């Protein structure tokens, strides 16, 4: 009996000790609790150096794999809890390596030596081309689905973005009726005016929403555009990208109105005279990510509000 008791105590002690050592070892191995590694055999640790790729990862349900993001990441709200690894040009390589990521998501625009150094550290670096068209965006979403083992979710996301864009396009076409596209100025409110060129996804989004972008003939992605060209184009609507639009609210519109009222050239356009100014969140419209359909809808709704429904199709030069 005494012996049995002793044996039980020894066995219990060994088990406790083993658990303690095991826990200590696991803890030593990494800050992350062991459950993260074992929850799904396919789970990977991902560091994203591009806000749009982060958004895509979350959109395909792979947000849980992301362990680190760039300083510029701000969406979805869950990224606020994640560790920061620096900017695009100068991420902290030490911090990234210390996170022991399986994959680093990076853009071709990031400096080559950053990519090389990460590869040199034995990390799998997935380099994405800059997404220049809507198709590019959808392609990147699919690629992220493959990388994060979320193929089905990625397909669903791509289909839903496509469907949303189609809905916006159909509604905009209907609202426009026989009229031509609404001439749209998209860009900055003070000279030198920058805008989006004709081969950008922004140009595509404006088209989907029933507009024609002032820079549609320019092949450069982010050109500065001549005030003369703006006056000659005579935009009927001005779309201004605004950082943190939701937080700024009405003050942003008041400021845009003031700026435009003093902007050489821009103030003498049809849009400025009629106060047809639409603000869009900068990150929604300028980030080639899954919220691009939202951008198209916002612009289409804004244009519809400005020009009414199909009863009064927007007048257009092309239609004359």
């Amino acid at each position: 009996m005494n012996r049995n008791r002793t044996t039980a105590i020894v066995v219990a002690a060994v088990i406790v000790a083993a658990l303690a050592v095991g826990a200590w070892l696991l803890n030593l191995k990494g800050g992350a609790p062991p459950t993260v590694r074992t929850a799904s055999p396919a789970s990977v640790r991902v560091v994203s150096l591009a806000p749009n790729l982060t958004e895509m990862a979350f959109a395909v349900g792979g947000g849980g794999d992301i362990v680190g993001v760039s300083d510029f990441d701000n969406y979805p709200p869950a990224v606020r809890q994640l560790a920061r690894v620096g900017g695009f040009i100068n991420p902290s390589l030490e911090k990234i390596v210390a996170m022991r990521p399986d994959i680093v998501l990076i853009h071709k625009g990031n400096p080559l030596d950053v990519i090389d150094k990460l590869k040199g550290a034995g990390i799998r670096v997935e380099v994405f081309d800059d997404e220049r068209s809507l198709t590019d965006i959808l392609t990147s979403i699919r690629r992220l689905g493959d990388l994060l083992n979320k193929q089905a979710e990625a397909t669903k996301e791509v289909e839903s973005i496509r469907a949303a864009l189609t809905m916006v396009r159909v509604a905009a076409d209907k609202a426009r009726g026989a009229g031509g596209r609404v001439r749209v100025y998209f860009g900055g409110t003070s000279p030198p005016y920058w805008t989006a060129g004709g081969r950008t996804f922004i140009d595509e989004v404006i088209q989907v929403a029933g507009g024609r972008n002032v820079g549609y003939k320019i092949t450069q992605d982010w050109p500065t555009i001549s005030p003369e060209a703006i006056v000659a184009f005579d935009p009927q609507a001005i779309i201004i990208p605004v950082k943190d639009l939701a937080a700024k609210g009405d003050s942003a519109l008041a400021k845009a109105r003031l700026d435009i009222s003093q902007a050489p050239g821009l103030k003498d356009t049809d849009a400025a005279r009629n106060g047809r100014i639409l603000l869009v969140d900068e990150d929604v419209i300028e980030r080639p990510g899954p919220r691009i359909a939202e951008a198209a809808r916002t612009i289409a709704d804004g244009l519809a509000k400005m020009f009414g429904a199909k009863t009064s199709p927007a007048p257009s030069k092309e239609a004359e």
Partner: protein
Amino acid sequence: MSLSRRTLWTAVASLAALVAVGLIALSLGAETIAPAKVIAALAHRIPAADQAAIIIWQLRLPRIALALFVGAALALAGAVMQAYFRNPLADPYILGISSGAALGAVIALSLNLAAGASFGAVQALAFVGAIAVMAAVFGITRATGRRDTLTLLLVGIALGVLLNSVTSFVMSRSTGGLLANQFFWLMGSLASAKWQSVWILCVVTLVGGAASLVLSRELDILLMGDEEAQHLGVSVGRVRAVAIIAASLLTSVAVAAAGVVAFIGLIVPHIVRLVIGPSHRALLPIAAVAGAAFLILADLVARTALAPAEIPIGIVTSLIGAPVFLVVLLRGRRA
């Protein structure tokens, strides 16, 4: 002391070039307007709300006028700085004035300040930055107890480096449209031209130009060295103070209105000096006219070469200026 024939011819030629370039710049632009319509718009024979009238009166003319005064101001400032430092490599930005203006502009853009009435918030803060640097450079130099130009130069360079790094830091925290705004401002543009800023530039350029012209004989003598100048009865301290303040003010308004337009303040006075010699009485006015013509031409290229897109003017001034400069150097050698 009468002007040499060569000087007279150069003066006539640069004035003719200014008029010619001005007329060409008025008739060409991103939007093609027939010459007859340009004249009709200028004569107010078409309604002011007409597109052509808006383009001519509110965009093209103020822009050409602004280019005229910015070009003249930078060339004048460069000529005076080169005499002041007795160094042909001196340019209007040598004391860090452009760095102060750049930081002011980049901060104004970052804070997303609303445009002001005449000189926009960006231009206003750029001007404040330029003046603040100017004051700091002179103040720190004075505090060192040394008044020599080398100390002034070193203080200017140190402050310029400091401010450039702060500017780069602010820009490294920016993304998207804001970064584009800052980037394009730094490379210079005359697209923000309004009549109000033209008038400000006009007044400052005329006053600064007149002040330096009054000092032209003293500037000539300064080239021989401070001691010699003192012996010849020049009150060196006062002349130097007026000259450098005039040049700094000219630079400050120019850079606030048009951003950092590169190279023009360095090469225009240089080229003119190579052609007509170093006498400031002729050099200053001719450099001003040549600088004006050169910047109008550069802006014409900037707004038409890739129309409807624009090229930052600082790139154009360097692209045209540097080869012209090299050609003049080579020809001067042969002569």
